[in-house]
């Protein structure tokens, strides 16, 4: 299980591949991987967005990403999970977050992956500030 928050360019599928290859104990044992990638869109709440800055609460963020991952591992029969979340300045089409779950079977993989991203969006202390026509605005709610 790994969680990571960093300021920089996120290559989500490279993160998943590298993590999977680093965990030799997984090889041959998992049959299902569910991956979610969240990507910055160029529109939100009906308006064009040209750039975004993601702020977080260092320490608390990692604590909650770890907790949510552990909760998923208790609730479903999964073998491993990875969460990598980017912070800082980014542009439309930039990946923001990747969640991956490895399991023997697909039902557990899908449900655990969905749980982690849903809980991340509800509980992990991240905030988005968007650059829109006319200035900046803090995003006030999850856009789904």
């Amino acid at each position, binding site marked *: 299980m790994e969680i990571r928050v960093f300021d920089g360019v996120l290559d989500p599928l490279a993160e998943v591949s590298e993590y999977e290859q680093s965990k030799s104990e997984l090889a041959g044992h998992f049959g299902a991987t569910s991956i979610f990638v969240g990507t910055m869109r160029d529109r939100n709440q009906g308006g064009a967005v040209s750039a975004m800055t993601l702020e977080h*609460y260092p320490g608390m963020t990692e604590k909650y990403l770890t907790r949510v991952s552990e909760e998923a591992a208790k609730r479903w029969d999964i073998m491993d999970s990875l969460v990598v979340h980017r912070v800082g300045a980014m542009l439309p089409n930039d990946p923001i977050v990747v969640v991956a779950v490895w399991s023997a079977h697909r039902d557990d993989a899908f449900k655990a992956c969905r749980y982690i991203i849903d809980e991340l*969006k509800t509980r992990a202390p991240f905030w988005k500030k968007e650059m829109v026509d006319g200035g900046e605005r803090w995003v006030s709610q999850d856009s789904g």
Partner: protein
Amino acid sequence: MSISVKYFASVRDLVGKAEDAVDCGDIRSANDVWVQTTSVVMPPNTLVAINQEHARGGDRVRDGDEVAFLPPVTGG
């Protein structure tokens, strides 16, 4: 010892500072921390964290605690 206070994102913009510290004195709750360290009304959707755990405004705070005021989260 004292209580360290953090303000994030739109809450930081509102109160005009990112951090503060306050003596415990007669502070009992996170809400008391807000009142003692800011001059504005707390926005109704503000979240409170005590020692990096989600908490409630009425929850007890003690000397050495880290209290944070957060707007609704929008990660992912």
